[in-house]
């Protein structure tokens, strides 16, 4: 089997474990809505990338149906987004929050660069780590705005 196959298999095996280990009864609704909304953001992001031919995904799950990478937007980004929201420092000060953003912003582009160098899961045409980092920060910000708005409404109803 190709190494690309094993990387995807590891992601599919690891994600349920990560979700299971991090979801509590108290946060399961927020975690799930975060996961689902991340899927949307990540799908749009990938769609734009493909439309503008910035990247390509030569080895992918549905080679005929789409040029998008399914695992990336369906599992990988959402998992990062979910962890980002679950451990977001709500009471932290400005510096701490900034550091937290920078830390999570590096995960996706770093993974992507490594995978681009070593496998054919991703191929960069007009893309690099810095662009990945900036778009990663933008997506996390969008996610934070949405989830906090969503949470506010849920709490209001709980009172």
């Amino acid at each position, binding site marked *: 089997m190709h190494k690309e196959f094993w990387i995807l298999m590891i992601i599919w095996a690891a994600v349920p474990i990560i979700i299971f280990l991090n979801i509590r009864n108290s946060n399961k609704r927020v975690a799930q809505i975060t996961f*689902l909304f991340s899927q949307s953001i990540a799908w749009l992001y990938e769609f734009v990338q493909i439309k503008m031919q910035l990247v390509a995904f030569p080895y992918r*799950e*549905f080679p*005929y*149906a789409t040029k*998008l990478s399914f695992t990336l937007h*369906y599992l990988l980004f959402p998992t990062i987004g979910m962890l980002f929201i679950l451990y977001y420092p709500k009471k932290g000060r400005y510096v701490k929050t900034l550091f937290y953003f920078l830390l999570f912003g590096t995960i996706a582009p770093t993974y992507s660069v490594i995978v681009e160098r070593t496998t054919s899961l991703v191929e960069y045409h007009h893309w690099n780590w810095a662009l990945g980092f900036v778009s990663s920060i933008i997506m996390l910000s969008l996610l934070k705005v949405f989830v906090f708005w*969503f949470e506010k409404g849920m709490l209001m*109803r709980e009172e």
Partner: protein
Amino acid sequence: MVMERLILAGILIISFVIAWRFIPAEKARDAFILFLSIQFFSWPIGLFVVEMKWIEYPVQLFPNDNNDYRSSLYFEFFLFPITAILFNLYYPSSRRVIPKLFYYLLIAGFFTCIEFILERFTKLVDYHKWQWYWSYFSVMLILYLSHKYYKWFKRGLR
């Protein structure tokens, strides 16, 4: 070709109008729960049926959409979620089993009917191995799953 594209543009416009006029602002979060849960199912299923070449969508809104994404964006992300959101917001939860069942059959039938007509008379959808009753069944199943999920989500909130 022109007619097909007009229909797709029409679906987009109608979806936005419905989302804007028929979903009350205080239900925005509910609509999001439903929309996102529908996507969770329709992404893998929609891609899978196209990958297997059971269904084809020869004409999309933009000429080279099919290079990038052969699944139907407008059915899966607009028409169907909107149908499902209205389905849930106006669900007859106080009624008994028979009216509820009838409601399921009706809404899923409405959606399947639209798809069937479009497959017959336009190039928007082409069934290869696919049959209309597969649509009917899968639409009903996804409506059911999204409804269950929505109810579960709301249950913990009050």
